[in-house]
């Protein structure tokens, strides 16, 4: 089975801190995604990557950046955390072949609180 592992289930940080959320997948998937999930808003795409060192902005990239130095690891960075970035963050991966016909595999999420 595909395993997508997010480094922390719960994280509490302070306003203005630089925050790193890590995600690792073990199935050699080309595509990796970061979403945030808020009540009543569903999942919103922050960034995605289709190859090492490649990234594309999603729908809500402001205040975030990403890093993909190795195929299996995709990091989300909050440059200067703010309280409106308190949310559940979900990482996902999928195969490249067939484009969006591939299912996404999700990690269990990181619930991030910014105080």
């Amino acid at each position, binding site marked *: 089975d595909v395993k*997508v592992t997010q480094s922390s289930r719960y994280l509490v940080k302070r306003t203005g801190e630089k925050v790193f959320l890590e995600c690792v997948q073990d199935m050699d998937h080309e595509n990796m995604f970061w979403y945030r999930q808020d009540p*009543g808003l*569903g999942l919103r795409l922050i960034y995605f990557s289709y190859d090492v060192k490649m990234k594309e902005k999603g729908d809500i990239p402001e205040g975030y950046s990403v890093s993909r130095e190795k195929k299996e690891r995709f990091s989300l960075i909050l440059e200067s955390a703010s309280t409106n970035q308190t949310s559940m963050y979900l990482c996902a991966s999928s195969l490249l072949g067939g*484009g*969006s*016909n591939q299912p996404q595999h999700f990690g*269990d999420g990181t619930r991030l609180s910014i105080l």
Partner: protein
Amino acid sequence: SQQGEEDPQALSIQEGENATMNCSYKTSINNLQWYRQNSGRGLVHLILIRSNEREKHSGRLRVTLDTSKKSSSLLITASRAADTASYFCAESGAGTYKYIFGTGTRLKVLA
């Protein structure tokens, strides 16, 4: 917002009954996928239906797609308490790796 919407937002049924959830999407899709999310966990892929398909089955799941109405429905037959979860549809257009998720339906199956 490009997000689709699920209907109803919440659904409560007795074990053994059928549960139907509907999804309205916005784009010209290549395919539409359904996912389940248990409380506090990530999403799990359930089923994918392509734009040229009208119906698809997987075990107790039945998905229909009406591209003229830009809608899809997920039917869970003979529901179980373990089906209690949130269910999301995700639309994807041609030539993109992006998925647009709906806002979800919270299903509660009472034992």
